[in-house]
């Protein structure tokens, strides 16, 4: 399908937001594998006059752990440039005076160290994997059902993801379970929530039309970004499928082979 306005609009851009898994690297055994050309592409972006941030729905590890892994793959990225649901959740909790009962993977707990967790008045769930036991879910349920104004935050809303030993249920499934049990709607923190994208834009000091999102997930990365007024470009790496280019509701502003190609097109449009 024809690219819409991309990369012609590249000149007016002031910032780029990159998805991580599927754009920078592919996950697999151990640290995974860097996608060809991505390390160089990130270096080029950093050398340019464009602002740069990274955006992920990863919730099994803290940003520090995650960023260290990317460092081992050759990427020069710092924690302050990475936006993942947990820190956003912390900001939201503090802004609204909420104290969470957490049902998250152990590796994520450190992200919530600065948050008051006594006498919880809300629940936060992340991709807790094998910690999604009946007992743990029941505890979370009891906190919610006992509140006059129950609030449930879900770090992402994915249905499932792929791992080496098969498909596994993602956080969205357990979000739906608690929504049904308590007859409430969860607030999703992370892609594709507009609030999540907005927090990145605020950090960059940019208006939506001044930013471009590059990702492999047509609906959550590209669609989510477009919904906020940004441009969204899809890469043909990661979870991309050819049928994405015929999607009934989301049309990417551009579709490129990989991050390296996207960055080259972007920078050459800007005369660099």
């Amino acid at each position, binding site marked *: 399908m024809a690219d819409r306005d991309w990369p012609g609009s590249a000149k007016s851009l002031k910032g780029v937001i990159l998805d991580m898994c599927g754009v920078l690297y592919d996950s697999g055994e151990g640290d995974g594998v860097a996608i060809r050309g991505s390390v160089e592409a990130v270096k080029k972006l950093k050398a340019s006059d464009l602002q740069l941030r990274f955006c992920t729905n990863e919730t099994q590890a803290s940003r520090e752990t995650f960023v260290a892994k990317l460092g081992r793959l050759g990427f020069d990225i710092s924690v302050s440039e990475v936006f993942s649901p947990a820190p956003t959740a912390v900001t939201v909790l503090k802004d609204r005076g909420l104290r969470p009962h957490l049902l998250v993977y152990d590796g994520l707990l450190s992200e919530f160290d600065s948050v008051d967790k006594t006498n919880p008045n809300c629940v936060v769930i992340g991709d807790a994997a094998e910690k*999604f036991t*009946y007992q743990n879910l029941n505890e979370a349920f009891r906190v919610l059902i006992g509140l006059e104004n129950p609030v449930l935050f879900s770090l992402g809303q994915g*249905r499932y993801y792929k791992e080496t030993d098969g498909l596994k249920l993602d956080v969205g*499934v357990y979000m739906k379970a608690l929504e049904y*049990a308590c007859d409430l709607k969860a607030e999703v923190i992370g892609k594709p929530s507009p609030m999540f994208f907005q927090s990145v834009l605020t950090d960059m000091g940019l208006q939506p039309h001044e930013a471009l999102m590059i990702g492999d997930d047509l609906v959550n990365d590209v669609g989510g970004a477009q919904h906020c007024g940004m441009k969204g470009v899809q890469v043909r790496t990661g979870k991309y499928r050819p049928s994405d280019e015929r999607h009934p509701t989301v049309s990417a502003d551009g579709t490129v082979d990989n991050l390296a190609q996207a960055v080259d097109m972007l920078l050459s449009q800007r005369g660099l």
Partner: protein
Amino acid sequence: MPVDCNRMAGRRALKAVLIDLSGTLHVEDAAVPGAQDALNRLRQASVAVKFVTNTTKESKRILLERLQRLNFDLQEKEIFTSLSAARTLLEQKQHRPLLLVEDSAREDFTGIDTSEPNAVVIGLAPDQFNYQTLNKAFRMILDGAPLIAIHKARYYKRNDGLALGPGPFVSGLEYATDCKATVVGKPEKTFFIQALSDLGCCPSEAVMIGDDARDDVGGAQNAGMLGILVRTGKYREGDENKINPPPYLTCASFPEAVEHILKNLL
């Protein structure tokens, strides 16, 4: 004797009373005060009585033993559970189920082939609702196995507080697989029709007494019965306002419901 319910105009005299168990006649191992006598008075009034329950953790035998220990007068054949309804469905469709049900409930599936399962049956099974087993069920459904829910109760009352029912897990799997479960228990209309089928009466000649506004009263009324909501068990303040139409009657407990029936519906 088959009854042509469509030929009935308006409401006839009461012929049957369906009674919920957990939360209505008893809460865990304590009978609701006065319930045993109330049941006896009801029996003397010559209406048919059936005990209907979505309880999925226990076989009919276990339910019967508990009720008899609490001095309730009833027989096993008067008990109709959502497990009974599930078994009927499995037999009709010749499915081989992966049974996510407590060991104590498996009795009611004796004789059903469970080798190389091609269907997923979800009851109330806290021990089975772990990540690994749910992933297994999830992958089977993605591969085409039908998802059968014994019921979709949101939660139930235990001695130590409220606890998640099977509903949340069924909803989660429906979302994961983009499939709809077949629900066999309350509040499905077919459950109530099946429960009345061997009593030879129509829904318009029957009343349901229960503590769950949506599943007991709402479901029964949707099937054409009258519904009486009791304020015991899992009842919470304001539940009567959560269904439309509202309950025919909301009262304190089972004995008061029986009094009303004896005075007004016979």
